[in-house]
Protein backbone atom coordinates (compact mmCIF):
# COMPACT_ATOMS: atom_id res chain seq x y z
CA UNK A 1 0.00 0.00 0.00
CA UNK A 2 1.44 3.31 -0.99
CA UNK A 3 0.16 6.79 -1.56
CA UNK A 4 0.10 7.41 -5.28
CA UNK A 5 -1.12 10.99 -5.50
CA UNK A 6 -2.67 13.77 -3.49
CA UNK A 7 -5.75 14.96 -5.36
CA UNK A 8 -7.08 17.70 -3.11
CA UNK A 9 -5.74 19.69 -0.16
CA UNK A 10 -7.39 21.94 2.40
CA UNK A 11 -7.76 24.92 0.04
CA UNK A 12 -9.08 22.96 -2.92
CA UNK A 13 -11.57 21.07 -0.68
CA UNK A 14 -12.88 24.40 0.64
CA UNK A 15 -13.18 25.84 -2.87
CA UNK A 16 -15.01 22.73 -4.09
CA UNK A 17 -17.46 22.89 -1.18
CA UNK A 18 -17.99 26.61 -1.71
CA UNK A 19 -18.75 26.00 -5.38
CA UNK A 20 -21.15 23.15 -4.52
CA UNK A 21 -22.92 25.45 -2.02
CA UNK A 22 -23.43 28.02 -4.81
CA UNK A 23 -24.66 25.31 -7.18
CA UNK A 24 -27.14 24.00 -4.60
CA UNK A 25 -28.53 27.51 -4.08
CA UNK A 26 -28.66 28.22 -7.79
CA UNK A 27 -30.36 24.96 -8.70
CA UNK A 28 -32.92 25.17 -5.87
CA UNK A 29 -33.42 28.94 -6.09
CA UNK A 30 -32.51 29.71 -2.48
CA UNK A 31 -32.68 27.82 0.79
CA UNK A 32 -36.44 27.44 1.11
CA UNK A 33 -37.25 23.83 2.17
CA UNK A 34 -33.57 22.90 1.91
CA UNK A 35 -31.93 20.47 4.35
CA UNK A 36 -28.68 18.50 4.38
CA UNK A 37 -28.25 14.88 5.43
CA UNK A 38 -24.70 13.57 5.81
CA UNK A 39 -23.92 9.88 5.50
CA UNK A 40 -21.71 8.48 8.27
CA UNK A 41 -18.88 8.93 8.76
CA UNK A 42 -17.24 11.62 6.69
CA UNK A 43 -20.38 12.73 4.89
CA UNK A 44 -21.54 14.16 8.22
CA UNK A 45 -18.57 16.53 8.51
CA UNK A 46 -18.90 17.53 4.86
CA UNK A 47 -22.63 18.25 5.38
CA UNK A 48 -21.81 20.53 8.33
CA UNK A 49 -19.16 22.32 6.25
CA UNK A 50 -21.59 22.74 3.37
CA UNK A 51 -24.12 24.23 5.80
CA UNK A 52 -21.40 26.68 6.89
CA UNK A 53 -20.69 27.62 3.26
CA UNK A 54 -24.39 28.16 2.60
CA UNK A 55 -24.63 30.29 5.73
CA UNK A 56 -21.79 32.49 4.48
CA UNK A 57 -23.77 33.14 1.32
CA UNK A 58 -27.34 33.35 2.62
CA UNK A 59 -26.74 34.27 6.29
CA UNK A 60 -29.20 31.60 7.39
CA UNK A 61 -28.92 28.17 9.03
CA UNK A 62 -30.31 25.11 7.36
CA UNK A 63 -30.98 21.83 9.19
CA UNK A 64 -28.31 19.11 9.07
CA UNK A 65 -29.12 15.46 9.79
CA UNK A 66 -27.02 12.33 10.20
CA UNK A 67 -27.74 9.04 8.45
CA UNK A 68 -26.22 5.68 9.39
CA UNK A 69 -26.87 3.23 6.56
CA UNK A 70 -25.44 0.07 8.17
CA UNK A 71 -28.86 -1.54 8.66
CA UNK A 72 -29.75 -0.94 5.01
CA UNK A 73 -26.62 -2.41 3.44
CA UNK A 74 -27.06 -5.18 0.88
CA UNK A 75 -23.79 -6.87 1.84
CA UNK A 76 -24.37 -7.41 5.57
CA UNK A 77 -24.09 -11.18 5.19
CA UNK A 78 -20.99 -10.97 2.99
CA UNK A 79 -18.63 -8.84 5.00
CA UNK A 80 -16.39 -10.67 7.41
CA UNK A 81 -15.86 -7.80 9.82
CA UNK A 82 -19.04 -6.61 11.38
CA UNK A 83 -19.71 -2.93 10.85
CA UNK A 84 -20.51 -0.78 13.86
CA UNK A 85 -24.11 0.40 13.97
CA UNK A 86 -24.21 4.09 14.84
CA UNK A 87 -27.05 6.48 15.49
CA UNK A 88 -29.19 8.08 12.83
CA UNK A 89 -30.13 11.60 13.89
CA UNK A 90 -32.69 13.35 11.72
CA UNK A 91 -34.63 15.47 14.16
CA UNK A 92 -36.52 17.51 11.57
CA UNK A 93 -39.41 16.64 9.27
CA UNK A 94 -38.21 15.72 5.77
CA UNK A 95 -41.70 15.48 4.25
CA UNK A 96 -41.96 17.76 1.23
CA UNK A 97 -38.39 19.05 1.80
CA UNK A 98 -35.48 19.22 -0.61
CA UNK A 99 -32.95 16.83 0.91
CA UNK A 100 -29.33 17.06 -0.16
CA UNK A 101 -27.57 13.78 0.65
CA UNK A 102 -23.88 14.35 1.33
CA UNK A 103 -21.06 11.80 1.20
CA UNK A 104 -17.32 11.86 0.68
CA UNK A 105 -16.72 9.32 -2.12
CA UNK A 106 -19.10 8.03 -4.78
CA UNK A 107 -17.96 4.60 -5.97
CA UNK A 108 -20.28 1.61 -6.61
CA UNK A 109 -23.38 3.57 -5.67
CA UNK A 110 -24.50 0.95 -3.14
CA UNK A 111 -24.12 3.26 -0.15
CA UNK A 112 -26.38 5.80 -1.86
CA UNK A 113 -28.92 3.08 -2.72
CA UNK A 114 -29.00 2.16 1.00
CA UNK A 115 -29.22 5.81 2.00
CA UNK A 116 -32.20 6.38 -0.30
CA UNK A 117 -34.00 3.41 1.25
CA UNK A 118 -33.25 4.69 4.75
CA UNK A 119 -34.32 8.22 3.91
CA UNK A 120 -37.74 7.27 2.56
CA UNK A 121 -38.43 5.46 5.85
CA UNK A 122 -38.34 8.92 7.44
CA UNK A 123 -40.86 10.49 5.11
CA UNK A 124 -41.46 11.59 1.54
CA UNK A 125 -39.11 14.39 0.52
CA UNK A 126 -40.13 16.58 -2.39
CA UNK A 127 -36.75 16.00 -3.94
CA UNK A 128 -33.54 14.20 -3.06
CA UNK A 129 -30.24 15.38 -4.54
CA UNK A 130 -26.74 14.03 -4.06
CA UNK A 131 -23.59 16.01 -3.27
CA UNK A 132 -20.25 14.20 -3.36
CA UNK A 133 -16.71 15.39 -2.72
CA UNK A 134 -15.03 12.82 -4.98
CA UNK A 135 -16.57 10.73 -7.76
CA UNK A 136 -14.19 7.89 -8.55
CA UNK A 137 -16.36 6.01 -11.07
CA UNK A 138 -17.02 2.22 -11.26
CA UNK A 139 -20.74 2.44 -10.60
CA UNK A 140 -22.65 -0.82 -10.08
CA UNK A 141 -26.07 0.87 -9.91
CA UNK A 142 -27.78 3.56 -12.00
CA UNK A 143 -26.91 6.41 -9.63
CA UNK A 144 -25.22 9.75 -10.32
CA UNK A 145 -24.39 12.80 -8.25
CA UNK A 146 -26.01 16.22 -8.71
CA UNK A 147 -23.00 18.05 -7.27
CA UNK A 148 -19.42 16.78 -7.52
CA UNK A 149 -16.33 18.30 -5.91
CA UNK A 150 -13.94 16.49 -8.22
CA UNK A 151 -14.13 13.64 -10.71
CA UNK A 152 -11.15 11.32 -10.33
CA UNK A 153 -10.71 8.40 -12.74
CA UNK A 154 -9.34 5.46 -10.73
CA UNK A 155 -8.36 1.85 -11.19
CA UNK A 156 -10.22 -0.81 -9.22
CA UNK A 157 -7.09 -1.76 -7.29
CA UNK A 158 -6.78 1.78 -6.02
CA UNK A 159 -8.65 3.29 -3.08
CA UNK A 160 -9.56 6.90 -2.56
CA UNK A 161 -9.12 8.20 0.97
CA UNK A 162 -10.79 11.40 2.07
CA UNK A 163 -9.17 12.74 5.23
CA UNK A 164 -10.90 15.47 7.18
CA UNK A 165 -9.61 17.62 10.05
CA UNK A 166 -12.51 16.59 12.31
CA UNK A 167 -11.45 12.92 12.34
CA UNK A 168 -8.06 12.67 10.65
CA UNK A 169 -6.45 15.93 11.72
CA UNK A 170 -5.79 16.99 8.14
CA UNK A 171 -7.82 17.99 5.07
CA UNK A 172 -6.75 16.05 1.98
CA UNK A 173 -7.83 13.49 -0.60
CA UNK A 174 -5.29 10.88 -1.67
CA UNK A 175 -5.22 7.90 -4.00
CA UNK A 176 -3.69 4.80 -2.50
CA UNK A 177 -2.36 1.92 -4.52
CA UNK A 178 -2.70 -1.58 -3.06
Amino acid at each position, binding site marked *: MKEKAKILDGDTILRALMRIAHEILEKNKGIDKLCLVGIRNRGVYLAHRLAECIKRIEHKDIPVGILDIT*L*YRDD*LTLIAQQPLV*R*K*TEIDFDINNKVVILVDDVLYTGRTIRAALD*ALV*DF*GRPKLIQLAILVDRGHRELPIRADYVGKNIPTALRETVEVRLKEVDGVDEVVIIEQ
Partner: protein
Amino acid sequence: MAWTRKDLLGLESLSREEIELILSTAESFKEVSTREIKKVPALRGKTVVNLFYEPSTRTRVSFEVAAKRLSADVINISPETSSVRKGETLVDTGRNIQALKADIIVVRHASSGAAAMLSRHLDISVVNAGDGWHEHPTQALLDIFTLKEKIGRIKGINVTIVGDIAHSRVARSNIWGLTKLGANVTLCAPKMLIPVGIEEMGVNITDNIDDALVRADAVNVLRMQFERDESAAFPEALDYFRKFGITSERLNKAKKNIILMHPGPINRGIEIESDVADGPNSVILEQVINGIALRMAVLFLVSQGHDKKYEDIN
Protein backbone atom coordinates in the same frame (compact mmCIF):
# COMPACT_ATOMS: atom_id res chain seq x y z
CA MET B 1 -13.93 -4.23 18.64
CA ALA B 2 -16.00 -6.58 16.48
CA TRP B 3 -18.63 -9.08 17.52
CA THR B 4 -17.77 -12.67 16.61
CA ARG B 5 -20.16 -14.88 18.60
CA LYS B 6 -23.09 -16.60 16.97
CA ASP B 7 -24.81 -16.97 20.37
CA LEU B 8 -25.65 -14.96 23.44
CA LEU B 9 -25.79 -17.45 26.29
CA GLY B 10 -24.91 -15.34 29.32
CA LEU B 11 -22.89 -12.41 30.59
CA GLU B 12 -20.41 -14.57 32.50
CA SER B 13 -18.59 -15.48 29.30
CA LEU B 14 -18.61 -11.98 27.77
CA SER B 15 -15.78 -9.49 28.05
CA ARG B 16 -16.33 -5.92 29.18
CA GLU B 17 -15.74 -4.78 25.59
CA GLU B 18 -18.38 -7.14 24.24
CA ILE B 19 -20.92 -5.90 26.79
CA GLU B 20 -20.09 -2.30 25.89
CA LEU B 21 -20.50 -3.09 22.18
CA ILE B 22 -24.00 -4.48 22.79
CA LEU B 23 -24.91 -1.39 24.82
CA SER B 24 -23.66 1.08 22.22
CA THR B 25 -25.34 -0.84 19.40
CA ALA B 26 -28.61 -0.76 21.37
CA GLU B 27 -28.24 3.00 21.66
CA SER B 28 -28.33 3.25 17.87
CA PHE B 29 -31.33 0.94 17.62
CA LYS B 30 -33.38 2.96 20.09
CA GLU B 31 -33.98 5.63 17.47
CA VAL B 32 -35.67 3.14 15.12
CA SER B 33 -38.67 2.76 17.46
CA THR B 34 -39.23 6.53 17.43
CA ARG B 35 -39.70 6.67 13.65
CA GLU B 36 -43.02 6.79 11.90
CA ILE B 37 -42.01 3.61 10.07
CA LYS B 38 -40.58 1.58 12.96
CA LYS B 39 -38.66 -0.88 10.86
CA VAL B 40 -35.23 -1.39 9.32
CA PRO B 41 -34.35 -4.13 6.81
CA ALA B 42 -31.30 -5.48 8.65
CA LEU B 43 -32.70 -9.02 9.19
CA ARG B 44 -34.89 -9.20 6.11
CA GLY B 45 -35.25 -12.80 5.00
CA LYS B 46 -34.10 -14.18 8.37
CA THR B 47 -36.32 -16.29 10.59
CA VAL B 48 -36.36 -15.98 14.38
CA VAL B 49 -37.97 -18.76 16.42
CA ASN B 50 -39.12 -18.00 19.95
CA LEU B 51 -38.95 -21.31 21.82
CA PHE B 52 -40.39 -20.72 25.27
CA TYR B 53 -40.72 -23.66 27.65
CA GLU B 54 -41.75 -21.38 30.50
CA PRO B 55 -44.57 -18.86 30.59
CA SER B 56 -43.49 -15.40 29.53
CA THR B 57 -45.31 -12.47 28.07
CA ARG B 58 -42.98 -9.52 28.26
CA THR B 59 -39.74 -11.20 27.23
CA ARG B 60 -41.35 -13.12 24.39
CA VAL B 61 -43.27 -10.10 23.10
CA SER B 62 -40.19 -7.92 23.46
CA PHE B 63 -38.12 -10.36 21.39
CA GLU B 64 -40.94 -10.62 18.86
CA VAL B 65 -41.26 -6.84 18.49
CA ALA B 66 -37.47 -6.51 18.26
CA ALA B 67 -37.23 -9.15 15.53
CA LYS B 68 -40.09 -7.63 13.57
CA ARG B 69 -38.59 -4.13 13.73
CA LEU B 70 -35.52 -5.70 12.10
CA SER B 71 -37.79 -7.15 9.37
CA ALA B 72 -37.22 -10.77 10.44
CA ASP B 73 -40.00 -13.36 10.29
CA VAL B 74 -40.98 -14.61 13.74
CA ILE B 75 -42.39 -17.97 14.78
CA ASN B 76 -43.51 -18.60 18.36
CA ILE B 77 -43.43 -22.11 19.78
CA SER B 78 -44.73 -22.96 23.22
CA PRO B 79 -44.70 -26.43 24.75
CA GLU B 80 -48.47 -26.77 25.14
CA THR B 81 -48.94 -26.66 21.40
CA SER B 82 -45.85 -28.52 20.25
CA SER B 83 -44.47 -32.04 20.09
CA VAL B 84 -42.59 -31.35 23.32
CA ARG B 85 -45.70 -32.79 24.95
CA LYS B 86 -45.10 -35.97 23.02
CA GLY B 87 -41.70 -36.31 24.64
CA GLU B 88 -39.39 -34.70 22.10
CA THR B 89 -36.08 -33.63 23.60
CA LEU B 90 -34.83 -30.04 23.54
CA VAL B 91 -31.99 -30.89 21.16
CA ASP B 92 -34.32 -32.73 18.76
CA THR B 93 -36.68 -29.77 18.75
CA GLY B 94 -33.69 -27.51 18.06
CA ARG B 95 -32.47 -29.69 15.20
CA ASN B 96 -35.92 -29.61 13.64
CA ILE B 97 -36.01 -25.84 13.88
CA GLN B 98 -32.56 -25.71 12.27
CA ALA B 99 -33.78 -28.01 9.48
CA LEU B 100 -36.55 -25.50 8.78
CA LYS B 101 -33.75 -23.04 7.97
CA ALA B 102 -34.46 -20.75 10.86
CA ASP B 103 -31.55 -18.44 11.65
CA ILE B 104 -31.94 -17.63 15.35
CA ILE B 105 -33.55 -19.54 18.23
CA VAL B 106 -34.53 -17.52 21.29
CA VAL B 107 -34.93 -20.07 24.05
CA ARG B 108 -36.33 -19.98 27.56
CA HIS B 109 -36.14 -23.12 29.63
CA ALA B 110 -36.52 -24.16 33.27
CA SER B 111 -33.15 -25.94 33.26
CA SER B 112 -29.91 -24.07 33.77
CA GLY B 113 -27.63 -24.59 30.79
CA ALA B 114 -30.43 -25.34 28.32
CA ALA B 115 -29.40 -22.58 25.92
CA ALA B 116 -25.74 -23.61 26.08
CA MET B 117 -26.66 -27.21 25.31
CA LEU B 118 -28.73 -26.15 22.30
CA SER B 119 -25.87 -24.01 21.06
CA ARG B 120 -23.43 -26.94 21.22
CA HIS B 121 -25.67 -29.03 18.99
CA LEU B 122 -26.72 -26.37 16.48
CA ASP B 123 -24.99 -24.19 13.92
CA ILE B 124 -27.68 -21.51 13.97
CA SER B 125 -27.67 -18.72 16.55
CA VAL B 126 -29.03 -19.30 20.05
CA VAL B 127 -30.09 -16.48 22.35
CA ASN B 128 -30.73 -17.29 26.00
CA ALA B 129 -34.00 -15.74 27.15
CA GLY B 130 -33.63 -17.26 30.62
CA ASP B 131 -32.35 -20.69 31.68
CA GLY B 132 -33.43 -21.92 35.09
CA TRP B 133 -31.71 -20.03 37.90
CA HIS B 134 -28.63 -19.48 35.75
CA GLU B 135 -28.76 -16.40 33.47
CA HIS B 136 -31.14 -14.03 31.72
CA PRO B 137 -28.61 -11.95 29.80
CA THR B 138 -30.91 -9.65 27.82
CA GLN B 139 -32.79 -8.60 30.98
CA ALA B 140 -29.54 -7.69 32.72
CA LEU B 141 -28.28 -5.88 29.64
CA LEU B 142 -31.43 -3.79 29.39
CA ASP B 143 -31.19 -3.02 33.12
CA ILE B 144 -27.60 -1.89 32.67
CA PHE B 145 -28.53 0.04 29.51
CA THR B 146 -31.26 1.88 31.46
CA LEU B 147 -28.84 2.65 34.30
CA LYS B 148 -26.26 3.98 31.88
CA GLU B 149 -28.85 6.13 30.17
CA LYS B 150 -30.06 7.57 33.49
CA ILE B 151 -26.77 8.00 35.33
CA GLY B 152 -24.38 8.37 32.40
CA ARG B 153 -21.94 5.69 33.53
CA ILE B 154 -21.73 2.31 35.23
CA LYS B 155 -18.21 2.42 36.65
CA GLY B 156 -18.27 3.31 40.33
CA ILE B 157 -22.05 3.47 40.81
CA ASN B 158 -23.73 1.61 43.67
CA VAL B 159 -26.45 -0.82 42.65
CA THR B 160 -28.53 -2.74 45.16
CA ILE B 161 -30.41 -5.87 44.12
CA VAL B 162 -33.22 -6.77 46.51
CA GLY B 163 -35.18 -9.96 46.71
CA ASP B 164 -35.08 -13.59 45.79
CA ILE B 165 -31.43 -13.80 44.75
CA ALA B 166 -31.36 -17.59 45.11
CA HIS B 167 -33.93 -18.23 42.40
CA SER B 168 -33.03 -15.29 40.21
CA ARG B 169 -31.27 -15.58 36.87
CA VAL B 170 -31.87 -11.83 36.51
CA ALA B 171 -29.75 -11.21 39.60
CA ARG B 172 -26.96 -13.49 38.44
CA SER B 173 -26.73 -11.89 34.99
CA ASN B 174 -26.88 -8.42 36.52
CA ILE B 175 -24.06 -9.26 38.92
CA TRP B 176 -21.84 -10.52 36.07
CA GLY B 177 -22.56 -7.52 33.89
CA LEU B 178 -22.39 -4.82 36.55
CA THR B 179 -19.19 -6.07 38.16
CA LYS B 180 -17.48 -6.40 34.76
CA LEU B 181 -18.33 -2.77 34.07
CA GLY B 182 -17.03 -1.67 37.47
CA ALA B 183 -20.21 -1.04 39.48
CA ASN B 184 -20.44 -1.82 43.20
CA VAL B 185 -23.17 -4.39 43.74
CA THR B 186 -24.99 -5.04 47.03
CA LEU B 187 -27.39 -7.92 47.45
CA CYS B 188 -30.17 -7.65 50.00
CA ALA B 189 -32.45 -10.54 50.93
CA PRO B 190 -33.48 -12.83 53.77
CA LYS B 191 -30.53 -15.13 54.52
CA MET B 192 -32.30 -18.16 53.09
CA LEU B 193 -32.62 -16.45 49.70
CA ILE B 194 -28.88 -15.70 49.44
CA PRO B 195 -27.03 -18.58 47.79
CA VAL B 196 -23.96 -19.88 49.60
CA GLY B 197 -20.71 -18.60 48.11
CA ILE B 198 -22.26 -15.81 46.05
CA GLU B 199 -19.91 -13.28 47.71
CA GLU B 200 -17.18 -14.80 45.54
CA MET B 201 -18.79 -12.94 42.64
CA GLY B 202 -17.47 -9.72 44.22
CA VAL B 203 -20.64 -8.40 45.82
CA ASN B 204 -21.65 -7.08 49.25
CA ILE B 205 -24.39 -8.90 51.12
CA THR B 206 -26.81 -7.66 53.75
CA ASP B 207 -30.20 -8.57 55.13
CA ASN B 208 -30.93 -5.02 56.25
CA ILE B 209 -32.86 -3.14 53.59
CA ASP B 210 -32.16 0.33 55.03
CA ASP B 211 -28.40 -0.35 54.99
CA ALA B 212 -28.70 -1.59 51.43
CA LEU B 213 -30.49 1.53 50.25
CA VAL B 214 -28.53 4.27 51.99
CA ARG B 215 -25.70 4.61 49.46
CA ALA B 216 -27.47 3.13 46.44
CA ASP B 217 -27.67 5.06 43.17
CA ALA B 218 -30.12 2.45 41.93
CA VAL B 219 -32.14 -0.40 43.33
CA ASN B 220 -33.25 -3.35 41.25
CA VAL B 221 -36.25 -4.99 42.91
CA LEU B 222 -36.69 -8.64 42.00
CA ARG B 223 -40.01 -10.37 41.83
CA MET B 224 -40.72 -12.81 44.66
CA GLN B 225 -41.08 -16.06 42.76
CA PHE B 226 -43.52 -17.92 44.98
CA GLU B 227 -44.23 -20.38 42.17
CA ARG B 228 -40.64 -21.64 42.27
CA ASP B 229 -40.50 -22.73 45.88
CA GLU B 230 -43.36 -24.02 47.91
CA SER B 231 -41.34 -25.10 50.94
CA ALA B 232 -42.36 -23.83 54.33
CA ALA B 233 -39.02 -22.05 54.75
CA PHE B 234 -39.89 -19.60 51.97
CA PRO B 235 -40.91 -16.25 53.45
CA GLU B 236 -44.55 -15.42 53.72
CA ALA B 237 -45.61 -12.54 51.48
CA LEU B 238 -46.73 -10.00 54.07
CA ASP B 239 -43.79 -10.75 56.29
CA TYR B 240 -41.45 -10.20 53.35
CA PHE B 241 -43.09 -6.87 52.49
CA ARG B 242 -42.70 -5.68 56.07
CA LYS B 243 -38.97 -6.49 56.16
CA PHE B 244 -37.83 -5.98 52.57
CA GLY B 245 -40.61 -4.28 50.61
CA ILE B 246 -39.63 -1.03 48.87
CA THR B 247 -41.90 1.58 50.45
CA SER B 248 -42.01 5.35 50.07
CA GLU B 249 -40.91 5.61 53.68
CA ARG B 250 -37.77 3.59 52.95
CA LEU B 251 -37.08 5.49 49.74
CA ASN B 252 -37.28 8.80 51.59
CA LYS B 253 -34.19 7.78 53.53
CA ALA B 254 -32.29 6.91 50.34
CA LYS B 255 -30.65 9.22 47.76
CA LYS B 256 -33.20 11.61 46.33
CA ASN B 257 -32.64 10.53 42.72
CA ILE B 258 -32.35 6.82 43.42
CA ILE B 259 -33.38 4.85 40.34
CA LEU B 260 -35.94 2.15 40.90
CA MET B 261 -35.99 -0.82 38.56
CA HIS B 262 -38.05 -3.99 38.41
CA PRO B 263 -37.83 -6.68 35.72
CA GLY B 264 -41.57 -7.34 35.96
CA PRO B 265 -44.14 -8.67 36.39
CA ILE B 266 -44.63 -6.69 39.61
CA ASN B 267 -46.22 -8.15 42.73
CA ARG B 268 -47.67 -4.92 44.08
CA GLY B 269 -47.68 -4.86 47.86
CA ILE B 270 -45.23 -7.75 48.16
CA GLU B 271 -41.80 -6.62 46.98
CA ILE B 272 -42.79 -3.06 46.21
CA GLU B 273 -45.42 -0.58 47.36
CA SER B 274 -47.88 0.22 44.58
CA ASP B 275 -47.36 4.01 44.68
CA VAL B 276 -43.58 3.57 44.58
CA ALA B 277 -43.80 1.39 41.47
CA ASP B 278 -45.64 4.24 39.72
CA GLY B 279 -43.64 7.04 41.39
CA PRO B 280 -41.05 9.48 40.03
CA ASN B 281 -38.06 7.24 40.81
CA SER B 282 -39.47 4.32 38.88
CA VAL B 283 -38.04 3.56 35.42
CA ILE B 284 -39.97 0.31 35.06
CA LEU B 285 -41.68 1.23 31.79
CA GLU B 286 -38.50 2.74 30.37
CA GLN B 287 -36.92 -0.66 30.95
CA VAL B 288 -39.58 -2.11 28.66
CA ILE B 289 -38.83 0.50 25.97
CA ASN B 290 -35.10 -0.09 26.26
CA GLY B 291 -35.65 -3.86 26.17
CA ILE B 292 -36.73 -3.63 22.55
CA ALA B 293 -33.65 -1.66 21.45
CA LEU B 294 -31.38 -3.95 23.42
CA ARG B 295 -32.88 -7.12 21.95
CA MET B 296 -32.71 -5.64 18.45
CA ALA B 297 -29.00 -5.10 19.04
CA VAL B 298 -28.52 -8.66 20.30
CA LEU B 299 -30.44 -10.26 17.41
CA PHE B 300 -28.51 -8.11 14.93
CA LEU B 301 -25.12 -8.90 16.47
CA VAL B 302 -25.58 -12.67 16.78
CA SER B 303 -26.91 -12.84 13.22
CA GLN B 304 -23.55 -11.41 12.16
CA GLY B 305 -21.52 -13.69 14.44
CA HIS B 306 -19.43 -16.23 12.62
CA ASP B 307 -17.78 -18.38 15.26
CA LYS B 308 -19.32 -21.81 15.13
CA LYS B 309 -17.79 -23.14 18.30
CA TYR B 310 -18.86 -21.80 21.61
CA GLU B 311 -16.64 -22.45 24.57
CA ASP B 312 -18.62 -24.35 27.17
CA ILE B 313 -19.93 -22.47 30.12
CA ASN B 314 -18.19 -23.90 33.15
